[in-house]
Structures are given as structure tokens and as C-alpha cells.
């Protein structure tokens, strides 16, 4: 019997957001995520640490990215925002239980 072992390093694209992720910023985020996925970058880590506010349109851009990456065989995971005004929309829609979230980028990448 032959036993072969190997290490597979997954390539993860990191996207860092700051400021407000609202209806105004959702469209450019969708464009960026779509470009990554088209280019084969199907594992995406989005760092929301410094995001101040998220609304349902911003959430929708993240959900679409998650669905598109998973459909392509990858995933989209989040570093949780620190501001309560950004966390709120995830809690009210229960998406804090749908997205895989970490408290910092290093632990998110380490557990990928």
C-alpha cells in the first residue's frame, strides 16, 4: 500500500472594507467580488473590522458573494465588524449564523 500525503494551500483573497456598507456602496462591492470570482479567486475573506454601518443592501452584496463563491466551489467568510451599528443587521436577519465569522483576519485564514 502506498500512502501519499500532501499539503494543499488554499489561495484566499482578502478584501478590507472601511466606512459604511450601505446601498450606496453595495454596487461597487458586488462588482469587486464578481471580478474576483470571474478570475477564479473563489475563496474570499472580507474584513469588516472597521466598517461602521451595514444595511440590508450591504448584507445582500455579501450574501450574493457567498452564494456565488460556494456555487463555484469556494467560500466567502467574514471578519466580524466591531461597531454595533454594523453587527445589528447580521443579528436581525440571523445571518450571523449563516456566515462563517472570525474576530480577526489571522484566525479566519488559519481556520480556512
Amino acid at each position, binding site marked *: 500500500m502506498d500512502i501519499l500525503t500532501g499539503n494543499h494551500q488554499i489561495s484566499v483573497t482578502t478584501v478590507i472594507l472601511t466606512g459604511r456598507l*450601505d*446601498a*450606496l456602496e453595495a454596487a461597487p462591492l458586488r462588482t469587486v467580488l464578481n471580478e474576483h470570482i470571474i478570475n477564479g479567486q473563489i475563496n474570499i475573506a472580507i474584513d469588516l473590522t472597521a466598517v461602521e454601518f451595514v*444595511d440590508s443592501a450591504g448584507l*445582500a452584496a455579501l450574501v450574493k458573494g457567498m452564494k456565488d463563491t460556494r456555487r463555484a466551489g469556494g467560500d466567502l467568510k467574514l471578519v466580524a465588524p466591531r461597531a454595533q*451599528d454594523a453587527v445589528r443587521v447580521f443579528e*436581525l*436577519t440571523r*445571518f450571523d449564523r*449563516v456566515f462563517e465569522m472570525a474576530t480577526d483576519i489571522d484566525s479566519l485564514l488559519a481556520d480556512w
Partner: protein
Amino acid sequence: MTKTVDLRLDATYLALREIGPWLRCLFDANGWGPDGIGPIELAIHELATNSVDHANPADGVLNLSAETNDDSLVVLLTDRGREFDESSVTAPDANQPQVRGYGLMIIEQVATSVSYSREDDTNCWTAQFPIPIQHPST
């Protein structure tokens, strides 16, 4: 004593960012302190975003009016856009994450009540919030 404070907004996503500062002024004027602004800002933001997205008023204007008294904050949002079609709203399914449709779900959790009426050519949304502010359970 009842007080009313109005805000006229362009029906654009950028203009919706004026809702937060408007609410902070309202809270300051009533001596309520900043706690509790966040959920209400999100709820009103969602109402106004729905107007921009779906009503798309021809005059490009949204009107917000806040009425405060001892135990409630009542916000009226009006626009002269397309009539709201309730049948177009699909309730989100927790087991099947969807991309859109969470705005009303958020508003209904934060507000004590939310109602819609069509008066002549105007959409009228009324949302009531309790004072003191109660944080929605999550």
C-alpha cells in the same frame, strides 16, 4: 407635548446618509441620549431605501416627519412614487439565504408597528418606535 421635525431628502442612496444626523439632532432635542438611535436609524434607512428602490418618485423627493411625545417616536415617510405592491414582497426563508427582501423584516423587528397606505398619488409609511428605546431581542 408633541413635537414634529421634518426632513426632506433627495431620493438617492447618498442622501439617505442624512437620516442618522437628523435622528441624532432629534434625540438631542428630546434629551434622550444616543442609546437606541442605531436600531431606529437602520429601520428608517431601510424604509427610505425601499422608496428609492421601488417607488422611484418622479419628483426625486422623500419626506420624513418625526413626531415625538412622552412614550413614542412616530416617523412618517412619504413619496410620490409608484404604489407599493405587497404581493411583490417575499418573506425570507431562514433555511434558504436569499439576496434581497430583508428590509421589511428588519423594520418590523425594530418598530412597534409599521403600516402603509396610498393617499392620492402618495405612498405613506408610518413606523412607531417606543420611548424609552427598547433594543430588539436578537
